[in-house]
C-alpha cells in the first residue's frame, strides 16, 4: 500500500515546494512508495481520500489559511510543518511587530497599500473584494491553530532534508538528521 501525501502552501512563498522538487530524480523513488493526493504539484484541489502525511508550508495570515489548515488536520494522519513560516510564522510574522499599535490591522493595511514609499496607489483604496479572504488580527504559526506532529526546519529546508525526513516518515522511523541537514535558514 503506497503512502498518501498531501501538500499545501499557506502564507508561504512556495520556496519549500520548490525545495521538494530539489529532490530531483529521487522523486521517482518516492513515487514507488508514495502517491500525492491534494497538492499544488498535481493541481488536485480537493482531498480524494484520507492521507497519511500532510506537508504544510506557510503559516496563517487569513481565514482561508486557517480553513485549509483545519481541512488538512482533518484529512491527514500525520501533519508536518515544513519551513520557518509554518513553524514560527516566518517573514509574514514580522507584521506582528505592530500589534501593539492602537489600530494595528488598519495601520498594517495602510502601510502595505497606501503609505509605503514603494506603493503607487492613485485611488488610495485598500483591496476589499468580497472574494478576498479576511485577514487575521495577526499571523499565527501552524501549531497555534492545529496540532502539529513534526516539523522540518529551514527557510526553505533543503531537498536533502526533505528527502530524508519524508523517507523516515514513510518508513515510520525517526529522521535523525545529520548536522549538515539541520538548518534554520
Amino acid at each position, binding site marked *: 500500500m503506497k503512502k498518501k501525501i498531501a501538500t499545501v502552501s499557506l502564507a508561504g512563498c512556495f520556496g519549500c515546494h520548490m525545495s521538494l522538487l530539489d529532490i530531483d530524480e529521487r522523486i521517482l523513488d518516492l513515487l514507488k512508495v508514495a502517491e500525492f493526493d491534494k497538492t499544488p504539484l498535481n493541481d488536485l484541489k480537493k482531498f480524494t481520500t484520507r492521507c497519511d502525511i500532510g506537508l504544510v508550508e506557510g503559516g496563517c495570515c487569513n481565514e482561508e489559511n486557517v480553513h485549509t489548515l483545519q481541512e488538512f488536520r482533518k484529512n491527514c494522519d500525520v501533519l508536518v510543518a515544513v519551513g520557518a513560516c509554518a513553524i514560527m510564522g516566518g*517573514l509574514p510574522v514580522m507584521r506582528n*511587530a505592530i500589534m501593539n499599535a492602537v489600530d494595528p490591522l488598519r495601520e498594517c493595511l495602510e502601510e502595505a497599500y497606501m503609505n509605503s514609499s514603494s506603493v503607487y496607489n492613485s485611488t488610495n483604496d485598500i483591496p476589499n473584494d468580497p472574494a478576498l479572504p479576511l485577514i487575521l488580527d495577526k499571523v499565527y504559526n501552524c501549531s497555534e491553530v492545529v496540532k502539529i*506532529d513534526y516539523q522540518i526546519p529551514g527557510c526553505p529546508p533543503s531537498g536533502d532534508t526533505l528527502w530524508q525526513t519524508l523517507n523516515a516518515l514513510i518508513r515510520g522511523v525517526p529522521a535523525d538528521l545529520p548536522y549538515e541537514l539541520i538548518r*534554520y535558514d
Partner: protein
Amino acid sequence: MSKSITFKIDGATVTARAGQTIMDAADETGIYIPRLCDVEGLEPQGSCRVCTVKVNGRPAAACTQPAAQGIVVENDTLEILNYRRDLIRMLFQEGNHLCSICEASGRCELQAMAYRLAIVEPAKYPYLQPVRPIDASHPDILLDKNRCIRCGRCIRASRQIDGKNVFGYIGRGINKRVGVDGKNLADTNVDVNDRAVSPGTCPVGCIIRRGLGFYQPIGQRKYDNAPIGSEIENTRSGRGKQ
C-alpha cells in the same frame, strides 16, 4: 605552582589548576561544554545556564563553578541535553529570531547551538514576539534588540577589554535588556573598533556592523560545516583559556 586537581567529567579524568572553573578545565582537556554567555577572554557570568552540568548530582553552571578535587561532573547526558534544549528554545522564543533574514545566520551561536543540540521537534513554547525598538542612531553599528539574548558579552567586553561602559543591563525580569550609556548608541563613546561591538562578541544578530551585511557566502560561514564547540573537541590538548 599549586597542587593540581583531578576530577571526572562523564567518566573521563580531567586535570585542573586551583582557581579554574569546570569549564576552563574541560576546555583544556578538549571536552566541550555548551555555553552562550561565556566566552574566552571575559569574566564568566553564569546567566544563560546553557552550561548547566551536574556536580555530584547537583546542577551548577560550569562556567562559574570552581573545579574541585574528586567531583563527579555529568555533562553529556540525556537529562542535561534536554535542559539545554529547553534553554535554547526559551532564548529563541523570547525574542524574534528570523534566521532567514538575519545577517548573523551561519555564524550565530544561538542558532549553532540549536543545530548542535539537534532541536527539530515542533515548537514547544509559545513565541513571545517582543516589540523592541531598533537603535539605528549610529552610522556604523546597528542594534536590533529583538535578537538580544541578554548574554551580556557586549557589556563585559566594553568594561573589561575596552575600559569603557558603553552597555549595561536595565530593567528586570522578562523586561531586562541591554541599555546603552546615553540616549542611544550614537550618544555614547562607542568606537567601531571596540571589542564590545566587534564580530565574535555578540553571539547573535543584535549588534550588527552596518555596510558589511552577509559578508560570508552560505557554505563558508562559521558553523556551516562544523558544529559549535568542535574547535575545542578537535584539539586534544584544548585551546587553554587565558
